[in-house]
C-alpha cells in the first residue's frame, strides 16, 4: 500500500492497490457462467483517452461556420457518411454508419458538463467520477458496484491497471488483463503453474508476483483464439491509468466471449488511447476512428440480441477553431455514441452552435449525467440518484 492518499486519482495508487488484490483470470470470470438473471443487461463503456475531436467525428458539414473554422480539416463532401440534418460521420466510421442506417446507433450531440475543465486529468476525473464541481475519489460505476454488494466480478476492465471509474468507496471492479498473451518459446503452462505456486511466508509483493504467473497460465487458453498483433507495438498509446491497454478489438473480443458465456459481469470498461492530437490531427484521428469503428461494428454484430449496450465517450472534445499546427486544442462538449439492444438509433440531443461559443468552445446541450442516469436505470436497473449524488436529469432514448 502507498503511504499517502491523494485527493484525486492522479495516481491510480489508492485505486490500484485494491485492483491488484482482485486481478482475476478470465477463467475465474467464466466460472461465473450462468450465475446471472438472463434478462439482466450488460453495459460496455468505451473510453477514448486524449480528448477525441467531436467536431470531426460527427461533422456539421452543412454549417458554413465549420469550414471557416477549420479550413484544412474539412473532408470532401463525397467522403462524408451522411447522417441527415446536415451532419455526417467521419469517413473512418463506415461500420458505425451502417449501424446508424439500421437504426441501432444513437448519436447524442453536445454532451458535456458545466464549467468545463480543459486538463486531461481533471476532465477525465470529472467524467469518471461524474462529479463535475469537485471530483471525489470514487468512480460512478464503482459507486454502482458498492450499491449492489461489491463483488468485483460484476465490473471488470481488460486494461492492465484499474480505471478510476470502477473504483468504489468500499469495493472496486477487477482487472482482467488480456491482450497479447502468446507465450514465448519454451514457456509452457506447466512452467507458469509451477512458478505461480504460493509459498508460505513470502512478502505480499512476492506472492503477488508469483500469482501473476498462475493467472497468466489460466488466461492463455482463452487468448490463444483471439487475433494477435505483432509484439512491441511502438505506437500503442498509454492510457491515463498508466498502462498500455491491449488493442480495442482484443478487449472487445474478450467481452464478447464473457457475454456469450453468460457470466455474472454487468459492466465492462474498455479503452482506446491516443486522441490528443494537437498537431497534424486529421489523418491520425481518422486512423484511430477506423480502429474504433472496426472493433465496435464487429462487436455490435456479434452481440445482437444479447442485451448489451455500448456507450462511447472521451474526456472532452476539441476547440472549434483549428490551431496553427493543423491540430486542435482541448475543448469541451462532444458527441457520445450509444448502441445496442434497446437503444433507439438516430440523432439525439441538440447540436451546439458553432458561432455562439463560450471562449472559443462549444456550449454543451446535454449533461453527461443525464446519459449516465439512463444507462444506470435502463441497462443496470439501478437508482441513478443514489449513484449520481441525487442527480435528477435523465435522457430518454431507450426504445
Amino acid at each position, binding site marked *: 500500500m502507498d503511504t499517502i492518499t491523494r485527493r484525486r486519482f492522479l495516481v491510480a495508487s489508492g485505486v490500484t492497490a485494491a485492483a491488484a488484490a482482485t486481478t482475476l483470470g478470465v477463467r475465474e470470470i467464466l466460472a461465473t457462467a450462468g450465475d446471472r438473471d438472463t434478462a439482466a443487461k450488460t453495459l460496455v463503456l468505451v473510453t477514448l483517452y486524449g480528448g477525441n475531436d467531436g467536431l470531426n467525428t460527427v461533422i456539421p458539414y452543412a454549417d458554413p461556420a465549420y469550414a471557416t473554422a477549420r479550413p484544412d480539416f474539412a473532408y470532401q463532401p463525397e467522403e462524408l457518411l451522411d447522417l441527415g440534418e446536415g451532419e455526417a460521420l467521419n469517413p473512418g466510421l463506415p461500420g458505425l454508419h451502417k449501424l446508424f442506417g439500421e437504426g441501432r446507433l444513437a448519436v447524442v450531440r453536445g454532451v458535456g458538463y458545466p464549467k468545463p475543465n480543459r486538463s486531461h486529468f481533471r476532465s477525465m476525473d470529472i467524467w469518471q467520477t461524474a462529479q463535475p464541481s469537485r471530483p471525489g475519489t470514487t468512480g460512478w460505476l464503482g459507486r454502482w458496484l458498492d450499491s449492489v454488494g461489491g463483488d468485483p466480478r460484476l465490473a471488470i476492465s481488460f486494461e492492465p*491497471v484499474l480505471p478510476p471509474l470502477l473504483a468504489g468507496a468500499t469495493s472496486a471492479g477487477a482487472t482482467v488483463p488480456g491482450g497479447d498473451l502468446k507465450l514465448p518459446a519454451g514457456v509452457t503452462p506447466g512452467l507458469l503453474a509451477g512458478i505461480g505456486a504460493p509459498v508460505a511466508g513470502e512478502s505480499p*509483493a*512476492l506472492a503477488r508476483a508469483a500469482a501473476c504467473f498462475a493467472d497468466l497460465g489460466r488466461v492463455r487458453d482463452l487468448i490463444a483464439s483471439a487475433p494477435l498483433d505483432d509484439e512491441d507495438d511502438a505506437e500503442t498509446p498509454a492510457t491515463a491509468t498508466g498502462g498500455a491497454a491491449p488493442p480495442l478489438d482484443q478487449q472487445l473480443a474478450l467481452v464478447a466471449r464473457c457475454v456469450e458465456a453468460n457470466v455474472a459481469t454487468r459492466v465492462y470498461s474498455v479503452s482506446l488511447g491516443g486522441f490528443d492530437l494537437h498537431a497534424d490531427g486529421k489523418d491520425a484521428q481518422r486512423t484511430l476512428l477506423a480502429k474504433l469503428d472496426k472493433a465496435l461494428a464487429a462487436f455490435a454484430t456479434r452481440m445482437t440480441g444479447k442485451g448489451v449496450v455500448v456507450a462511447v465517450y472521451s474526456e472532452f472534445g476539441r476547440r472549434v477553431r483549428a490551431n496553427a499546427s493543423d491540430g486542435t486544442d482541448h475543448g469541451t462538449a462532444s458527441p457520445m455514441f450509444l448502441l445496442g439492444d434497446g437503444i433507439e438509433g438516430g440523432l439525439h440531443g441538440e447540436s451546439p452552435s458553432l458561432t455562439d461559443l463560450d471562449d472559443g468552445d462549444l456550449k454543451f446541450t446535454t449533461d453527461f449525467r443525464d446519459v449516465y442516469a439512463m444507462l444506470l436505470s435502463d441497462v443496470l436497473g439501478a437508482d441513478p440518484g443514489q449513484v449520481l449524488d441525487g442527480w435528477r436529469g435523465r435522457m430518454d432514448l431507450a426504445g
Partner: protein
Amino acid sequence: MTDRRLVTHLLRRLTFGPTAAEVDAAVRAGYDATLERLLTPAALPQPPDLGAQPAPGDSRAERQAVRKQQREQLATLVRWWLGRMVADRTAAEKLTFFWHGHWATSAQKVRSAHLMLGQQQTFRRYGTGPTGPLVRAMLRDPALILWLDGQKNTRKAPNENLSREVMELFTLGVGAYSEDDVKAGARALTGWQVDRATGRARLVARRHDSQAVELLGGTVGDLDSYADLIVRQEAHLPFVVGRLWARYGGPGPAPAVTGRDTTALLKAICTTPGFAATAGTLVKQPVEWLIGAVRQLGLEPDGAEPILRALGQMPLRPPSVGGWPEGAAWLTTSSTLTRLRAGQKLAARADVDGLTGSDRTQALATLLAVDSWSDRTHAALTATKDPRRLLALGLASPEYAVH
C-alpha cells in the same frame, strides 16, 4: 541476515541493481563504508549534445519538421539517461529518477528535450541537499511551469494548478493545506513565464501580483518566501520521508527518521533498525527492473524503449502529475508476459557461459543479486537446461520482480 545479504539489500535499494562484482566489493568494504560511498555527491554529468533547440516553424512542413526534431532530441535524452543509469555505481541516478517520478513532469506537454534536461540537472544539483533550495529551483523550473500551466498564472487570472500540486503532491500532502492556501499560493507565483526561445523562466512584473499574501500561517511576497514557508511546515519533512520510504524502504508506514537534507534522510532510512526486514517487500518499477538487468548482464541499454513502453514506464513521460503507480500495480499478467519476452531478448545478447554447470541456479542468483530462489522457482529453473532460457526465466521470475 548475513552481512552479504544486508549489503546486497542496500545496493539493490540505493542503486539500479548491483552486479556480482559490485556486491563482492561492497561486502569487502562493509555496510557503513558502502553507504558512505553510494551517497557521496557525484559531479554533475556532462550533458548530452542535443543540438540546438528547434526554432518554431511557419509553414506546416516546417512545423512537422520541428515536431520530428523535438521527438528525436527527446529520444536522445532518454537514451543518454538510460546510459547514465547503467554506468552509475552510486545512488545518484536512482535518486534523480526518484525526483523525476515525484515532481512528475511529462515531455508530452513540455515538448522540449532541453527543458526536460534542465529539470533533470536541477534534480542532480539540488536533489541531494536540503529541500528548500530544491523547491525554490523547481518553482522556477521552465518545464514544470509549462507542465502545470504556470504560464497562464497571471495577476488578472490566477491559475491554481501549480500552486495546488506543489502542496498536494510535491511538498505537504493532502490535508496539510486549505483551498484558500492554494489560491494564495497561486497569487504568490503569478507572472512567472517561460520564454520558449531562450528556455528560461522569468518574472514578468506586469503579470505578477506583488501584494503580500497570507497562507499556511505566514505571509509571503514572492516565490522564494513561498518556497521557504512551505518547507518550514510541520507536514513537510514527514511527507518527504514518507515518499522516500515508499521507494527505498518498505510498503508500511515510514519510521520517524530525521535529517537536514535528503542525503541524511536516505542514510537514516538505510540505517534504521527496520530497514533490513524490508528486503523483498517492494515491487521493482519497470525502469529499475530493466536497468538492473542490463547492468548485471553487462549490456548496453539498446532496445530498452519498447520494453519500457510495454511495461508502462517511459522515462520523461509519466502518465500524470501524480507520477507512476507504485507497488502491486506493476504486477499484472500482462507485465509478467512482457518480462518473459523481454527476458528472452536480454538473454539472447548476454554471455551465459557461467550458467551451464551443475550449480547454475546458484550462479544465476549471484548474477542477478537474488538472495535465494523459492522452492517453486528453483524447481522451474532446475528443469530448464538451456542457459539462455534459464537466464530469461530468472529475469522474469517473482524473486527478481521484487527487491
